[in-house]
């Protein structure tokens, strides 16, 4: 029963969050602020994680396919497809749920416990829309760009690590990442990132918006938000993979 209560309340909140803004200009300004705080500020961590993951995937593929039957350029291909299909969409979304999601829950949750949300309501402002809509639009907009950046940096990571440890030569690796490229994989992952972006923004916003108590409860809500967002990302990954392939 509790599950249905949360689902119902989540969709009711979304209904309020995506209603007509009081003043478009103010919401647009909020959108740009959120793009910077939630999107641009995530580029660094995305780059670092992707470079390392690209390097690690390259090593794993190389060590597990060390057979004369497999041409070494397949190491590049393996890294590219792993990054496009799962790492840069799903794994990155899981990481972003931790970074962006906890940020959203703690920000909105703190506003709730310090009565700032009540204050917005008293002014006659739709607090759900004012707080959640710009964040959601910003995250959904920025996620595909983060995905592209992640793939790029992951491929660079493989290019650095593979030849450095002697697992593959640079020309073979570059040949591999161009070999049998399937553009639908990118389309598929782009669709996934849009869904994941929506989840990463709205699920933590839900947990923050309805928090009750003080600082301890805000911390607990952040943890619950990240855990639930991660589970939902994996569930949707499964569903979308089944539907889109």
């Amino acid at each position, binding site marked *: 029963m509790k599950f249905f209560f949360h689902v119902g309340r989540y969709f009711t909140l979304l209904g309020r969050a995506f209603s007509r803004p009081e003043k478009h200009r*103010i919401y647009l300004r909020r959108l740009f602020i959120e793009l910077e705080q939630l999107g641009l500020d995530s580029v660094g961590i995305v780059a670092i994680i992707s470079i390392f993951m690209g390097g690690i995937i390259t090593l794993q593929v190389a060590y597990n396919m060390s057979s004369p039957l497999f041409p070494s350029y397949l190491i590049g291909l393996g890294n590219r497809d792993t990054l496009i299909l799962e790492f840069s969409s799903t794994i990155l979304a899981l990481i972003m749920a931790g970074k962006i999601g906890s940020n959203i829950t703690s920000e909105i949750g703190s506003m709730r416990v310090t*009565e*700032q949300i*009540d*204050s917005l*309501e*008293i*002014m*006659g402002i739709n607090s759900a829309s004012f707080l959640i809509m710009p964040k959601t639009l910003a995250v959904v907009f920025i996620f595909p760009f983060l995905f592209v950046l992640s793939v790029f940096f992951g491929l660079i990571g493989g290019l650095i690590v593979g030849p450095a440890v002697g697992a593959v030569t640079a020309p073979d690796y570059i040949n591999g990442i161009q070999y049998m490229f399937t553009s639908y994989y990118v389309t598929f992952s782009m669709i996934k990132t849009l869904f994941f972006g929506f989840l990463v923004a709205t699920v933590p916003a839900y947990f923050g918006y309805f928090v009750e108590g003080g600082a301890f409860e805000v911390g607990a809500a952040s943890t619950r938000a990240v855990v639930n967002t991660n589970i939902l990302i994996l569930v949707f990954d499964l569903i979308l993979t089944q539907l889109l392939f």
Partner: protein
Amino acid sequence: MITIQNIFKSFENKQVLSNISTVFEPGKTNLIIGRSGSGKTVLLKSIVGLHDVDEGTIFYDDRNFTQMNEKLRKKLRQEMGMVFQGGALFDSFNVEENVRFPLDMFTNKTAKEKQERVDFCLDRVNIDKAHKLYPAEISGGMKKRVAIARAIVMNPKYLFCDEPNSGLDPETSLVIDELIHELTVDFEMTTVINTHDMNSVMEIGDKILFISEGVTCWEGDKDKILEAENQKLQEFVFANKTYRQQRDDKIDSKN
């Protein structure tokens, strides 16, 4: 004028407010007093619509607030200002932006007009040289004054204050009380204040509603409160040594 009639409110089968009725008049500071947990905050939040009441009606002048839809409520709320216990200033905005925010949202004034209004309101609450500071950089008393400035920036007809003196030293409390009273009289607002501070009661209590366990126990003004016969009110008022002394002196002088 705010008229509340037969308000009932419960949370998960726990009755918090029972059959509360009263009238809050314009140009007066109306106080809701009572012990912690008596239902003061729930009553205040029910009056402004942050809690929906189970039964009863609330009228703002002749407008039935309890029967309004969300759209009409939002419109009416533009006539309200509220000062929350902790100030509830937006952390990411500086003092000036906090006060200007309602103007940005609901008016089409020019930047110059907005700035003039913000300066006027901040000046009215004696804030200068702090316009660009953030809430984390100012004192508790200043936060309350900025919150008052934000509450009056739209020229509200109704002002609500939830424990405006909590966490403040006695001197600052007095300044805040006098400020709210002055603004109430000057702008002819209907002001409702939630407090358990007896100094505030004796300073600015034009009308006092004493509630205990969610029930109205006594109504009157500051001139009558020390002589009230109500047992629960006496326990509340004379918990303060100063007022107990005043009462004893009065009894001694009569004898």
